[in-house]
């Protein structure tokens, strides 16, 4: 093949994948599969080829076309009611979550949908939330058609039960914006009105002005006090009732004292009060909160375990295939499971060739074949043809839901790790109250007139706004840095957890080995194009992982297969068949018994020998790869942490793994998901702060119980609901850097706390003397807040560079 190299470099015009050795040519462009070509055709017909100019190869691969029947359940009135936001006689409005939206071309295409389908009246994209809202004429276009159209373009909406009971958080976010707006408005105006006071001008102006200004300030501070700062009072009150002192308590106390004292001063004509400081404080605090919320929103992902279940299943009733929501499934129902669908309930196999991938449940990565009459447990995924099953247990009783509903999942506050802020704010509040009372007592003895003055001044100046801001800013910022390197934390609080981890547990399959990255190469006499095609046809008859791997290596789905006669698959040995009248065999050396025998010493390697016309011509060598940089990663991680390994597989690889793992680490094999959970629990009982690193399929339970559950994924669209962190497998090598960065972030928080304490000490030294002037408070408060914000932002950025995160 002289031009093989040239063709091998060709990328699919639509999705950018390698088009393989046999690209489909259409319109002078190359496509990797008919699916991609189909999308191009649709777009070209509708003059939407701008899609390709905005971003190169923006499309989504359609090598695994979605089954049409899959969306039949959308014709069910009840399901429609749950999905559709609004409906009247003419139009329906619906909002989809589309996980595959990823670039500006996607926005463009999804917003041009109305050009493709006349029934669509209006559609709009919210990119950050990956949402598409569509208004459509349901007389012209059914919901099912709409979803099918989106799927055919590669933008399959995620329709899950969890979407159905999604709470509306929109109003909450808007309320915060109102609060910020009110606080900012009042802050600015109070500052403006207080200017004469700052420069001592009112001594020259009339006394009456200063009084009016005082009352104006009070009027302006009232909405800040009653509306903007409301949440702090509520939070402080709630935590007090629980008997916990958190950061909200000194904040609320400071705000309250500030307002009461200032009002008293204004009403009694003794001063102008601290309204400017009050408004400024609340304004900065709310800004901090807003930054925090924004970070959440951008990185929010669904954790609900319901994401795993398909919404509805196909049910066979009176020989007719209809669809039913999973929750309505009854014992005895006959269900149809298509390729790649998850079995929703324990059921008995009635028909079809069942090959079930249980990696989700048991940890075994190879699909298991089941025969007629066998029970298939919920959570398995069918690989291959269509199955007919009879439900033997209702959904809620199934094994999987038991695992998911175990008490560990229900626990909200599962971790024993306390955040720095919560620990500090407790002591801070106690010390603060002590100082305030001591100052009050001291002045009560010496000069009673100054007593209340000093008491309130201490509470005002020590109001820990810098402390309250340092954590959200530092954590939020480093969260953003980490997510830039494809390390997504569920919430900023987990950065502090990461810093404290002293025991790391690794899962084997999919975590330290690469699921998709195994390499394959061919040794022996060169295969002609014809031979390649023949072996490809043979291997694509088998669903064995090795056969599939070889079939993928030799050709692609677009090739026309030659029919194979007398095909036989001998389990554990190999396959054989007659193609074009020539006998072909592929399998282990025992099966082939040729001259290319190699001792199978390396357990990481699998050999598949090829026999052509009863003559051995060569062999494929398939290597199950460990992740790149596994050794340095484990070495660095193990420096001051305990490392362990859990695997659902047999312990054949123990000797191989020994060279990677340090002596002290434990290695446990044949572990069921429940065993893994137990192991983590024991570690936690022994006082370790445990991080579990897994692929989130078979170790979901363990990920949840661990102090920090890290889910390594090759495709960020698929993740475990149980994990706290989702990590792109491509950045596995950076794992130790991430942990170091978490430690540095905590260091930054501590330093910024010291900075804010310094400001407090300066302020307090005035306050205890009873000579705190409003100007001083108005200067110190914003100064400390701003310097803390600047410091944390800059420091987390610099540490990110130092740790090579960005």
């Amino acid at each position, binding site marked *: 093949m002289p031009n093989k190299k040239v063709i091998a470099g060709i990328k699919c015009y639509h999705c950018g994948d390698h088009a393989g050795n046999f690209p489909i040519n259409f319109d002078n462009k190359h496509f990797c599969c008919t699916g991609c070509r189909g999308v191009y055709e649709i777009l070209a017909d*509708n*003059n939407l080829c*701008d899609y390709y100019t*905005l971003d190169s190869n923006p499309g989504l691969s359609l090598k695994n076309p979605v089954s049409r029947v899959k969306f039949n359940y959308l014709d069910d009135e009840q399901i429609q009611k749950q999905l559709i936001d609004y409906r009247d006689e003419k139009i329906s409005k619906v909002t989809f979550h589309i996980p595959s939206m990823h670039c*500006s071309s996607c*926005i*463009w295409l999804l*917003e041009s949908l109305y*050009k493709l389908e006349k029934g669509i009246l209006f559609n*709009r*994209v*919210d*990119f*950050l*939330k990956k949402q598409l809202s569509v208004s459509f004429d349901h007389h012209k276009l059914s919901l099912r058609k709409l979803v099918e159209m989106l799927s055919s373009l590669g933008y399959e909406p995620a329709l899950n039960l969890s979407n159905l009971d999604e709470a509306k958080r*929109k109003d909450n*976010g*808007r309320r915060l*914006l*109102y609060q910020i*707006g*009110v606080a900012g*408005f009042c802050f*600015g*105006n109070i500052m*403006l*009105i207080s200017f004469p006071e700052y420069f001592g001008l009112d001594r020259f102006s009339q006394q009456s*002005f200063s009084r*009016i200004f005082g009352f*104006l300030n009070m009027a302006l501070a009232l909405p800040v006090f009653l509306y903007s700062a409301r949440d702090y009072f509520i939070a402080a009150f709630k935590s007090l009732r629980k008997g916990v002192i958190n950061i909200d308590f000194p904040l609320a106390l400071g705000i309250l004292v500030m307002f009461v004292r200032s009002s008293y001063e204004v009403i009694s004509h003794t001063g102008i009060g601290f309204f400017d400081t009050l408004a400024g404080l609340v304004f900065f605090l709310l800004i901090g909160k807003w930054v925090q919320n924004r970070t959440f929103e951008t990185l929010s992902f669904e954790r609900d375990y319901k994401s795993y279940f398909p919404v509805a299943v196909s049910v066979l009733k009176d020989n007719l295939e209809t669809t039913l929501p999973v929750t309505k499934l009854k014992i005895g129902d006959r269900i149809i499971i298509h390729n790649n669908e998850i079995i929703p309930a324990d059921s008995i196999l009635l028909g079809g060739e069942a090959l079930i991938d249980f990696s989700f449940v048991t940890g075994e990565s190879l699909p298991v074949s089941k025969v007629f009459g066998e029970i298939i447990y919920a959570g398995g995924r069918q690989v291959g043809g269509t199955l007919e099953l009879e439900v033997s247990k209702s959904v809620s009783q199934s094994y999987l839901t038991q695992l998911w509903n175990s008490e560990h999942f229900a626990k909200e506050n599962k971790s024993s790790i306390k955040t720095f802020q919560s620990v500090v704010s407790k002591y801070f509040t106690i010390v603060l109250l002590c100082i305030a009372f001591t100052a009050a007592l001291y002045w009560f003895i010496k000069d009673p007139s100054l007593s209340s003055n000093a008491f309130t001044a201490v509470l005002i100046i020590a109001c820990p706004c810098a402390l309250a801001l340092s954590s959200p800013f530092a954590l939020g910022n480093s969260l953003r840095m980490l997510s830039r390197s494809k390390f997504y934390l569920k919430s900023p609080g987990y950065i502090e957890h990461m810093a404290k981890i002293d025991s790391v547990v690794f899962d084997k399959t999919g975590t330290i080995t690469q699921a998709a990255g195994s390499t394959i190469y061919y040794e022996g006499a060169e295969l002609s194009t014809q031979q390649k095609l023949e072996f490809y046809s043979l291997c694509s008859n088998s669903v064995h992982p090795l056969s599939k791997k070889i079939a993928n290596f030799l050709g692609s789905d677009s090739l026309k297969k030659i029919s194979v006669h007398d095909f036989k698959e001998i389990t554990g040995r190999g396959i054989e068949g007659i193609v074009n009248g020539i006998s072909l065999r592929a399998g282990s050396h025992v099966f082939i018994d040729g001259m290319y025998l190699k001792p199978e010493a390396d357990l990481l390697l699998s050999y598949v020998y090829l026999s052509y016309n009863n003559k051995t011509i060569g062999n494929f060598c398939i290597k199950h790869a460990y992740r790149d940089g596994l050794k340095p990663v484990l070495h660095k991680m193990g420096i001051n942490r305990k490392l362990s390994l859990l695997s659902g597989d047999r312990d054949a690889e123990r000797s191989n793994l020994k060279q990677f793992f340090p002596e002290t680490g434990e290695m446990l094999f044949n572990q069921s998901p429940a065993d893994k959970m137990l192991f983590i629990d024991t570690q936690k009982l022994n006082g370790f702060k445990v991080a579990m690193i897994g692929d989130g399929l078979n170790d979901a339970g363990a990920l949840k119980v661990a102090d920090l559950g890290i889910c390594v994924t090759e495709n960020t669209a698929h993740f475990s609901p149980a994990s706290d962190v989702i990590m792109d497998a491509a950045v596995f090598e950076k794992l130790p850097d991430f942990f170091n960065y978490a430690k540095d972030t905590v260091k930054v928080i501590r330093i910024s706390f010291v900075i804010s304490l310094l400001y407090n000490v300066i302020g307090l030294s005035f306050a205890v003397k009873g000579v705190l002037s409003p100007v001083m408070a108005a200067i110190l408060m914003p100064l400390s807040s701003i310097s803390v914000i600047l410091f944390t932002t800059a420091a987390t950025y610099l540490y990110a560079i130092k740790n090579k995160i960005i």
Partner: protein
Amino acid sequence: MYLLIGCSLTLALGFLAAFIWSVKSGQMDDDYTPGVRILFEDNPTTDESKKDNQ
């Protein structure tokens, strides 16, 4: 002097009202997509553009 204070406060209140109104109408809900949207060229489909030109 009182008039001026009144003026400045009314003006500021006006801005506050404008802000609240903008939040209410959903301007702050999504601050990324509109920025990208404005960059898209408006290419009407061929037959529509013909109609427009005639």
